């Protein structure tokens, strides 16, 4: 396969397959959750479950002081790489062009040198995340193959994107193809691994807040 054929395949059939798996898989994951249902609460409510659910979706992103102090490395490295992913994925001009092609919507991009610097910071943060996972006794104890595999799938697009942008090593079309392929791998794994938290956390935070809010507690 020539480098052009590779790139066309990655941008064409592979992308379609990955998208289908991503969309169908995510819908299946959500359905698997919701179909289990939840028994209605017959106790007299003190507060509002709905208000609690909506509130916790937002407030759970902001830990209290004591919690922050105890888990500072986890929180800081986690937030940095999440923010970095947000910037590098959604505020990078070439990505916005792709989204425009596929979904028909677009928005202003950040200056590319800024995104470039963010990419480096994101990679550093992800490395810190891995080191922390390996060295911290609780994380080491909890972690399974999936945790490390998913980490790899997450950092791969960031690294291959950086490499592709800076045209290091291989011809640009091949580098871009590798980068797109790495994203497709991430998309395929997304609904079936802990990466699903990206959308299921809205459900879990909702339930948490609803259960507590019903009792009059802001969780």
């Amino acid at each position: 396969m020539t480098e052009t054929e590779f790139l066309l395949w990655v941008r064409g059939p592979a992308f379609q397959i990955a998208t289908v798996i991503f969309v169908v898989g995510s819908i299946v994951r959500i359905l698997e959750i919701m179909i289990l249902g939840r028994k209605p609460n017959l106790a007299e409510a003190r507060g509002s479950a709905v208000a609690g659910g909506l509130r916790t979706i937002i407030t759970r992103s902001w830990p209290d002081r004591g919690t922050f102090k105890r888990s500072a490395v986890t929180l800081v490295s986690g937030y940095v790489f999440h923010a970095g992913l947000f910037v590098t994925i959604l505020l990078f001009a070439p990505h916005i062009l792709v989204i425009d092609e596929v979904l028909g919507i677009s928005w202003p991009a950040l200056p590319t040198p800024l995104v470039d610097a963010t990419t480096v910071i994101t990679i550093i943060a992800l490395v810190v995340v891995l080191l922390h996972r390996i060295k911290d006794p609780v994380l080491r104890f909890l972690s399974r193959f999936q945790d490390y595999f998913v980490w790899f799938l997450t950092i791969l697009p960031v690294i291959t994107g950086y490499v592709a942008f800076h045209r290091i090593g291989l011809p640009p079309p091949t580098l871009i193809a590798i980068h797109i392929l790495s994203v497709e791998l991430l998309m395929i794994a997304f609904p079936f691994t802990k990466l699903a938290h990206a959308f299921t956390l809205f459900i879990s935070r909702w339930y948490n807040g609803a259960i507590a809010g019903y009792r009059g507690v802001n969780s």
Partner: protein
Amino acid sequence: MSGPTLARGLNAFKEQIDAPTASFFSSCVHCGMCAEACLFFTETRDPKYTPIYKLEPLRKVWWQEYTFWGKLASTVGLSKPVTDAELTEWETLVYDSCTMCGRCTMVCPVGNDITYMIRKMREGMAASGHAPPGLIGATQRAVTIGSPMGVKYPALEAQIRHTEEEIGFSIPVDVVGADYLCTLSSMEIMNFPEYIGAIARIFHETGVSWTISSEAFEATNSGIQIGVSEIAAVLVERIVKAAEKLKVKAVISPECGHAYMAIRWEGPNLIGRPYSFKVVHILEVLDELRKAGKLRTTGKESRRLTYHDPCQISRRGGVYEQPRNLLKMVAENFVEMPDTGIMNWCCGAGGGVSANERAEVLKMKDFKRKKAQLDAVAPDALVTACANCRIQLEEGLEENHMDIPVISLTETIAEHLAGETHPEARPS
């Protein structure tokens, strides 16, 4: 009811898994933050006490039963079913090292309610025969005798008579049409019977119409601690029957943590129908009396006081403002602990842990978390509103050579009641 088996246990797991549970397991990213919220972990630094890890068998069942890849993997034998040996290994994690305090639930960044799931997991653990012996005994006594500690009504009657002597007026029992039905915990009846005198005096002074039921005086619910909803329902039903028979407007839950959770929040769901009466915690009643201007106190405690929030009342129950309102009435030197209110730390003995002799050593270790809070605040006395917390706090303080008296909030209010006249003071 047939005996416990692994199959019954796994079935219970399957039935317990609902949408919230599935969303929680789907969202967990193994960040480990729940560990730092759990006093069993913070005081031992043993990673096996990480809250989400305590749920591992339940998570496996979820994955194998309710996810596409999990179902496929278990069908072709790539994923092994949960074994009896695993449940044996998890018994100490689910019972000895968890009080269902709910702090992990408050801290998880993806919003997992781990406590909710532990409560569900205990259903399967009990059904498979993996509940601690101490709890099994207490539960059996609760069902057959009416109290987990075997306290029968004549014993309570004797305590009531003693109290009537002390306070100088009679305590209403089995009064039809009273506004409130007061329940009590066996711990209070046995160790802190002055609670009965305290509420009697407060209600007498504030003109509250109340009664105790000779048929249903026990507030505690071993069923929810051990995780057998059928038993929990039987225990709640007793109180419901008494409340309906006496035609009361509300049932009062005493100074006991899980009793409030059982009757207020789980009760109607256990028996499958809403109540025809309200349920309130004694602190809620007192605070309402305060707001209505009926509860009047005199004098203030000058010693430095702090408040230990019983988890099932504050964080899990929603009654965290009322104790502070009440304390402000009688304390001129009240300070909060670091990490307070709904983020306060558990005493370490709730959720069945104190009834579990096997957990004794661990229970004393985890008290160190409360000790750290108290070291930071250096109070003259520690106020709380749960008899079980009280015992644990007293034991922990003694073990750590700390001379801080532990006092009940309700009793403290009673101590400062204004305007009481002893009936025997009438001129003869």
